[in-house]
């Protein structure tokens, strides 16, 4: 009986246990299985979603980059709002408010952050496997700064530009001031032949512009402007000319106008505007013909031939040459005034007076304050003032023809510093540069020009120029001597020294760049910067124009947009000439200055601009 009970119990508990076990097993299964299935399905849809995401990310990148490309082309196309993109025309453009790429819809939303910055948000959206919308929206920022740059390494660009007294410095990869040249081995670099029987009477050089006046040429012009920007390579080009109709004796330049002293009885001084070489007016002076003139600080000083009842020295106010040229004053010299040089508040006159070859006039009241009597009675033809010394050149004398006088006290004592006896020479013109004096003579033959040493007051060398005619004018600039000659076919001659091993350098030289086309009419310039090493200074001027041809007559200006200013600090904002014809074409020039012994070395120049 006990066993039976036990059996019954066992059977019952077994039955109960199995049912319970099954229920529990199913319950556990129901809990775990769905979780695993979900994981499996999720990983599959997740990977498909990843595929979608990578395509969307690539499209979003395309959206931002396309907006950037549109900004590069035209900032003004970035209109606030939502835009789709299209490249149907071979370049990116905005179309509508969105566009579709298969199952993806994308758009870019543009909004202003400030005047020169815009925020761009690329939105790409699509429907996922499970019907849920997905989207990504990366953002970017665009700045109104599409700056372009013109970079020049000067050693490499030297040949494409123009050089006046500068050359390549191989060691440093830049350009430097040229060697002064060995004057004992001179040669004529280039000369110009003006029409007819031209006599080069007077020269004036202002940086790369040379102005020459000649005796009456009849149908030819008596006033010529030449471009010296490439003279070191032997190139001279004519910039312009003016018809004067009479013998011209002397030329001086101030503030964009040339004043020519002539033989005319009614137009003793003729005025030529240098922007277009138009003769704009004249001055009818009392007394004899105008022989000499000098312009400085709004004053034009004129010397005439001796006038028995009148004066020989006159000063005019040239602040407004186009409207009027009022007479400021005059002085009675009682001799022919052959040459004038203004320094400080005084005019130094070289005269025919036998006892007063040098006369000093105070400009504030046009009164004669001093004079100097050179030995013997030879007439003084030329005067040049440099520092505290006045240099005089004169007719053949039994003593000396070249004198240096100490004029530190123009109204006090004048004492001689030295003199040079040139034998039987007659000096017509003088130019002083550094420790050398350059003279031109009436002698002709083989002694038209000479270089004098001012340290020991001796003739360093006589230079025989082309032909044998006298030379009326001389001017030294950079590494060249410019001579005005009466030789019919060699009116203006440019002299250079031979190869020199000495360390004497030119004290000023100019490199002019090639002409640069920015490609767009509305170009705005940013900064000019450069790299220079060595001893000395480098300064810049720029000019712009609407066409390449107009660039030739554009004015060289500095940071205040005016002609007598220069860029001296690298990375300066460029200011254009307000009167420039346009800004598409650009050109710069670099002026190197040294002390004659050392040179700055200019290596790279960079101009940044936007258009």
């Amino acid at each position: 009986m006990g066993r039976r009970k036990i059996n019954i119990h066992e059977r019952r508990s077994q039955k109960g246990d199995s049912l319970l076990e099954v229920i529990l097993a199913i319950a556990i299964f129901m809990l775990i299985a769905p979780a695993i299935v979900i994981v499996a399905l999720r990983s599959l849809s997740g990977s498909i979603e990843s595929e979608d995401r990578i395509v969307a990310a690539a499209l979003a990148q395309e959206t931002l980059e396309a907006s950037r490309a549109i900004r590069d082309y035209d900032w003004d196309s970035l209109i606030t709002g939502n835009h789709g993109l299209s490249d149907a025309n071979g370049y990116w453009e905005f179309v509508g408010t969105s566009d579709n790429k298969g199952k993806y819809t994308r758009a870019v939303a543009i909004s202003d952050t400030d005047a020169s910055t815009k925020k761009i948000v690329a939105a790409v959206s699509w429907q996922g496997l499970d019907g849920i919308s997905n989207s990504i929206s990366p953002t970017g920022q665009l700045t109104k700064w599409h700056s372009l740059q013109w970079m020049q390494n000067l050693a490499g660009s030297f040949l494409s530009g123009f050089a006046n007294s500068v050359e390549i410095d191989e060691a440093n990869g830049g350009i430097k001031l040229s060697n002064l040249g060995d004057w004992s081995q001179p040669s004529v670099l280039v000369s110009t032949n003006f029409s007819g029987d031209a006599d080069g009477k007077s020269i004036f050089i202002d940086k790369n512009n040379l102005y020459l006046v000649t005796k009456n040429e009849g149908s030819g012009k008596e006033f010529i402007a030449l471009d010296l920007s490439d003279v070191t390579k032997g190139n001279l080009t004519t910039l312009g000319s003016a018809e004067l109709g009479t013998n011209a004796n002397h030329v001086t330049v101030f503030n964009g106008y040339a004043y020519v002293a002539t033989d005319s009885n009614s137009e003793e001084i003729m005025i030529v505007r240098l922007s277009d070489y138009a003769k704009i007016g004249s001055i009818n002076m009392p007394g004899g013909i105008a022989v000499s003139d000098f312009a400085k600080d709004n004053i034009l000083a004129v010397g005439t031939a001796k006038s028995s009842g009148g004066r020989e020295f006159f000063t005019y106010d040239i602040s407004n040459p186009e409207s009027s040229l009022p007479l400021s004053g005059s002085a009675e010299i009682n001799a022919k005034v052959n040459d004038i040089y203004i320094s400080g508040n005084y005019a130094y006159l070289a005269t025919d007076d036998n006892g007063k070859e040098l006369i000093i006039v105070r400009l504030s009241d046009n009164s004669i304050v001093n004079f100097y009597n050179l030995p013997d009675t030879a007439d003084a033809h030329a005067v040049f003032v440099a520092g505290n010394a006045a240099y005089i050149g004169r007719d053949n004398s039994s003593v000396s023809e070249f004198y240096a006088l100490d004029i530190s006290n123009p109204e006090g004592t004048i004492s001689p510093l030295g003199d040079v006896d040139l034998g039987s020479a007659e000096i017509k013109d003088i130019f002083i540069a550094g420790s050398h004096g350059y003279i031109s003579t009436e002698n002709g033959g083989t002694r038209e020009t000479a270089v004098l040493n001012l340290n020991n007051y001796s003739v360093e060398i006589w230079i025989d120029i082309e032909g044998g005619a006298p030379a009326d004018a001389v001017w030294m600039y950079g590494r060249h001597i410019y001579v005005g000659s009466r030789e019919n076919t060699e009116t203006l001659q440019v002299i250079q020294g031979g190869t020199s091993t000495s360390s004497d350098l030119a004290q000023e030289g100019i490199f002019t760049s090639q002409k640069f086309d920015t490609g767009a009419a509305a170009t705005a310039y940013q900064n000019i910067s450069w790299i220079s090493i060595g001893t000395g200074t480098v300064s810049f001027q720029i000019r712009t124009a609407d066409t390449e041809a107009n660039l030739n007559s554009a004015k060289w200006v500095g940071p205040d947009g005016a002609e007598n200013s220069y860029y001296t600090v690298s990375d300066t904002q460029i200011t254009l000439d307000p009167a420039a014809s346009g800004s598409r074409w650009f050109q710069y020039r670099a002026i190197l200055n040294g002390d004659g012994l050392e040179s700055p070395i200019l290596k790279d120049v960079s101009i940044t601009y936007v258009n």
Partner: protein
Amino acid sequence: MLIRKPLKFEGITLVELIVYVAITSIVLLFVLRFMWNVSGVSIRVDVSTELIQNSRFILDKISYDLHVAENVVIGSSTFNTHPGALMLDMPAGAQNIFYDTYEKDILVGRQTIKIRKLRRRAGEQQAVDVTGDKVNVANFVLKNRTRAQESSNIKIEFTLAFVNPGQDPQRNRELNVETAVSLRQ
């Protein structure tokens, strides 16, 4: 006679429960693994992953090179057709970068099939593959979207298809990607 039925708890002991859970889980794992393999989910995930990783690598590499390049050498590049080629001039004397495709024979199972791969060559060095052996570059087209004289902008379109010589539907996937990059010069 009274038959005393001793009161007994008719239940499961904790140990039995634990054992049941353990056994059931193991059984379930095997069942589901079988289901998983039969349904081909893992294959689909592998294929997807391979396509995604190759696409990402191509995008990253080409985008970086284009961002850094000084300009596109148009004469040495092939635009508007498949297969395209791209030659980039890099700044500061660094070597040129050249992207193009080539055909390679690969062994899949016992078959030898030809696939197209993307490669990158720096200067004169040996070219390096950008895509792996499991994907075929079915399409690689470059389009020059530079306007006028502005910074270059290149549009890139490529399609990667999983190598599927047996035409297995599970492995029949491809990814179409389109993007564009502007040079930052």
